[in-house]
């Protein structure tokens, strides 16, 4: 389910034709995505999965790796259904 997110990050934030090394790769603390980029990613996720992400949830715990993003998005999907 996280494929769209992975593709989006690779397209927007990684050098051409590079891939994310792992699902645990640190996106924010690793300098791949800055805060403005994160806002962009969030609005992509909101549109892609038709969920809304409150400001309080925009934290490292939820967005620093693909792994935690996936978990967070699934959780949001569950609560909203």
């Amino acid at each position, binding site marked *: 389910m996280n494929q769209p997110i992975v593709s989006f990050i690779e397209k927007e934030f990684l050098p051409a034709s590079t891939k994310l090394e792992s699902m645990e790769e640190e996106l924010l603390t690793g300098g791949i995505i800055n*805060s403005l980029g994160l806002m962009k990613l969030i609005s992509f996720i909101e549109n892609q999965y038709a969920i809304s992400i409150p400001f309080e949830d925009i934290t490292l715990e939820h967005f620093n790796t693909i792994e935690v993003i996936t978990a967070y998005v699934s959780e949001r999907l569950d609560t909203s259904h």
Partner: protein
Amino acid sequence: MFLNGWIPPIKNNSLKTGLNKIPLTQSQQLIYAGQRLNPNSPLYNVPYVFRIHGPIDTDRFNRAFQLLISRFDALRTSIEDDGQQVHQLIRPDIDFKPAFIDWRESPPSEDLDSWLEERGKRIFDLARPLFDCVLITLGDNESIWYLNLHHLITDATSLNLLYHAMEEIYRTDGKANNSLDYKPFADYVVYESESMQARNKDSIDQYWKDNIAEYGKPFHYYGNNIKPLNTNSERTVVTIASERAEHIRKRAQQPPFGMISQHLAIYNIFASALALTVHSAGGTQSFAIGSPVHNRDNRDRNRTVGLLMEVFPLFLKIGKEDAVADVIKELKTSIFQMLGKVGAGMANAEIGRSFNTMLNYIPWDFGRFDGHRVEADWLHPGHCDPNHVLRCQILDPGKGEMQLIFDFNCEVFPESKRKLLPVHCQNALKAILLADDTPVQEVELIDEEERGMLMRKFKPRKDHADKADFMSSFEKNVELSGSSIALIQDGEGMSYTSLNRKANMLSNYLLSKGIQFEDRVGLYMTRSTDYIISLIALMKIGAVFVPIPSDIPMRRVQFMLKNSDCRCCLSHGSIDYQHIKEIPVVDLDSDQNEILSYSDANPPSIQSPRKIAYHLYTSGSTGLPKGVIIEVKALNNYLNWAAAHYQIEQDTVFPLFTSIGFDLTISSTFLPLMKGGTLHIYKEAMGGPDLSLFKVLSDNAVNTIKLTPSHIGMIHDRDLGNSQIRTIIVGGELFKTELAKSLSGAFKDKASIFNEYGPTEATVGCIAYKYEAEDVEGYSVPIGLPITNMRAYVLNDKLKVLPGGVVGELFLSGESLAYGYHNLPEMTKEKFLDDPFRPGSKMYRTGDLARWNEKGQLEFKGREDEQVKFNGYRVELTDIESNLTKLNKISDAAVVLIGSDSSGAQSDIENCARCGLPSNYPNADFDREGICHLCNAFDGYKERVNTYFKTEDDLRDILMSAKNSERKYDCLSLLSGGKDSTYVLARLVGMGLKVLAFTLDNGYISDQAKENVDKIVAKLGVDHVYGETEHMNKIFVDSLHRHANVCNGCFKTIYTLSTQVALEKNIPFVVTGLSRGQFFETRLTEELFWEQDRNSERIDSTILEARKLYHREKDAISEFLDVSMFHDDKTFNKVQFIDFYRYSNVSLQELLSYLKEKIDWKRPTDTGRSTNCLINQLGIYVHKKEKGYSNYAFPYSWDVRLGHKQRDESLEEINEEIDEPQVKKIMREIGYTESVSQLENSDRLVAYYVSSEDIAQRDIRTFLQESLPAYMIPGLFKRLEAMPLTTNGKTDKNSLRSLNKAQLDADVPYTAPRNDIEILLSEIWCDVLQMKKVGVFDDFITLGGHSLSAIRITARINEELQLNFPLNKIFDLPTIAEYSSYIEKILLELMDEENE
């Protein structure tokens, strides 16, 4: 020597090939515009200096820099402005060589810093490369790389990218190819344009618009309301030590900060600190802070050099009760909110103008240069965009020290404030790092040094060594110079000896009457020698005097005497004191002989020192005056200071010409007598204005005077060069600088002018300032410094000391403070607080606003209530006033905020217990039982009203009387389809009459109501016609403007069209279904029933006269419908109007059951209301908005009064909910636009000015626009002949606030009635037209007068004067002035007749 490389020539061939000409981005446009406005200011230079500690090879450096230029298109960019369009040109290559300067052998003539400073200020030619690059070799192992870029091609991130690219190229001598991965700026320009097109612009624009409207209001740092014009800027750099910086970095990772990135979290910390600073230093609760957003939201843009950054506002509101932690949390949300709304190209000029303060967080990590240590510095070009009066930057290298940089606009921040703001900000930072629940208001931003400075100012002036008691001084004067003249009244002098003897006799007399130590005694007197004798007599025996002026209402006199527990009251012959019953009155005239029989020797000395000197009453917010208790020591403190400060001597002559009940008068009363001088007494006029001041000036016998600014307003334009007056003490009100200047001029600069401030509660004056023209900058004369033994504090709501300059509430402490309010312990507690700075003492809360100005003087900033909220802005009325008076032709000005008539919350409205009339109906007056004045008056003429009503038999007789077989119809019946008119029709048919039913289709009759109408006429078998007009909507609009409802227009249309039908079809009667309540709305008035013998015929003929006038008025009906028949009196005979319910007293119950039985009538349900007309609620909506109550409130109250409706039913119908969306829809349909005042609220700022001639509104507005922001420009300017004054000589703002909308809009200056007849007429007009004030040139029609009010006014005039003026006179003579001179003429004629 450093010119080499500067202003590089453009290669000739570059114009031919590969030239890219593209538009400017949004950010570039803003900067370009700013530079164009300030062409000679380096305000957008961004000079960086890198000090490299190691050898640098200049050739290699040059090669590297050439590569840098080729890789970054920003460096090859310049601006092309052909006068029409502005583009940026990106050239394929440019010929630029950095300047290389070697200072090893030829040391510079100037030091490096000044060289850099000068270089950094160079102006770029925008048509050429927008950067400058220099390498200075200082030593073998030390070089300076100077790189200055114009902001058009750079931002903070770009500098970082450029540095690293340059370093890498140099290090590898061009071999590394990482740099090739950088993206061109031209790509971003395309991206921005695409994003802007793709964006759903409206909703986002709306977001910024709405928030800017709420938060983007200007505020002033430290009360300095200068609008900066030039770009001069000074930088203050604060180093945050490593330890503290590390603490900040650590805190950033902890709650409540912790954010997705360390940078954002640190930004949150500093933004919160800056917010607290702005809140306190700017005195604002909601504001915006500009926050740069780098727009690098993906990998490509992360690697682009150029101006990508845009600045967006962070919005913040700090509530009165908010804690520090709340501010942090709110800002966090605000940051996210902003980040969610930003996007390339979004920051337009409007967004750019919404803040004056910017905060930038810049990661400051440049790393080594070719392995050498580097120190980077960002130079300040000494200039900055004047729209950003404060820029705050944090340079954070990630570890170790941080730098906190403040760039200040020099106009807004004088040097002292440039020192203090960083201190305030650091103290705010301390509080923010604690992030606890401390209320924001309790966070003190000033440090010990500033507090000490402010406290030194608080410190009292040196006390006088020989502090004297007034009575001892007076007695000494008697002893030493008894023959000197103490008092003069009406040319007669009284010596000190004589005054003392008289006072002694009175003292002894009063003692014999039982007046004791500390008894209170009223002095109800005119200004007179009696008054002075009395107060000295009372002081001698230790009694407390209570001055009661002669010109206040009787009830207030009684209140003061009772409230102060006076033992007795002293008065004299010229006062009518008969109404004082509860305590004995000593009449100094009638008791004179007895008093003179007492000994003139000093009374026995009092047993203990006197404590209380007097009680003085000041007006209270509750409407009842408060008695302020003044102690002897407070009075002495003031008098001793004042005598020394104003140099009161034996030759001082003061006039006593102001009210004895006014605190200001204490100076005049006591100062001369204390120092052996003379007091000239000017008695007030009994009734009429007090013109004593003019007498004082024309007598020219005094040399020292104390008066109010309003007094000065009356005299400042006279030539007083010959006046003896050398000392002028001004008090009581804000003293405008312009007035002071003009006053000084009037006295040919020969008089010293003092501004004295002090509430009654701090005894006359406790802060004072000697006016020096060159010393005064602000719009008002400063009030200066506290007097001897007094302190003044400017505090916030939580009693914390505010930074110097910030406006806050003024608190007073010290010896002059009053003891409290007599018999008001609660209020005393509320106003006299414990002084937190001097434990054990009290501090008085003045309710006045003040600030410490740059010169260390206090400035009075008006009453807390003078500062009004207007459309969300805090507006200082005095500020507008003083600017007005700067206009030459204007000698005085007063600005008031006039509220809507609907002031008062709906929940505060009561309804008459009997009829339901709402309490906000104009002039409504309820008695103790809650019964309104209309009901009470009605009780008096109820019986006569009953004779006006008849029976259905009478009706049948009238209608039958004209029965004629030639006629097809006996009458026309107006049918709306509602219950009342349906009943009328059914009854008429039931009487056996031939009836034509008439319905006006106004376009808003509900479908069900129409069905009802069709069903009714079918069932009753009558003919029916619909009337209609294509102009109905214009008539509605006109009616809304004239009457604030739609019904008036609709009714008149019905009458007009039905009269036409009746004339055509030869129908003699039109029968209406008006309710009895509606008679009183449209036909009947109380006055018609005043006369005992008034019979129905006479009433009917008056009504008919009024009806003729009504149909001949000019309005939309007469414009759009044919009303020619009404000009013929015969029409009114041919077609008579009959009100059915005059003849029927049917109850609602009966009526409904009759309708159900006869025609199965049902209430329409599709209007959602009790009415069958859809537009009706629009009328109610507008009426409620404009007047505060429903237009049905009055007629329904009459229905209830006359027993045709129950109170509850009426209230239920009046309070029906209004469907606002529906109302707005109908407004659009009929083309009615709500006035701005209706949309927001009907408050408006009105300026009154005194001038000998009218000045065009536009001229005044243009003049004010030069100095005031748009929101402070009054909406209306009205000329006055003279400023109305209260009895204390202050501007009577209440009176200025009571003119209504129509009067304000009319193009006539307000002129008060000038003679008895005008006074009488204006009282009648006010009453009938429900107004507070009517000027004699106000127009009857403009004020909303109509035929019904004509009936009322005419009837009242006739009643008062026992004359018989016709109704139409008021339309011929529509102003009080005209009508009254007509009356005068008639009265003279009548007198002549009698004489003949």
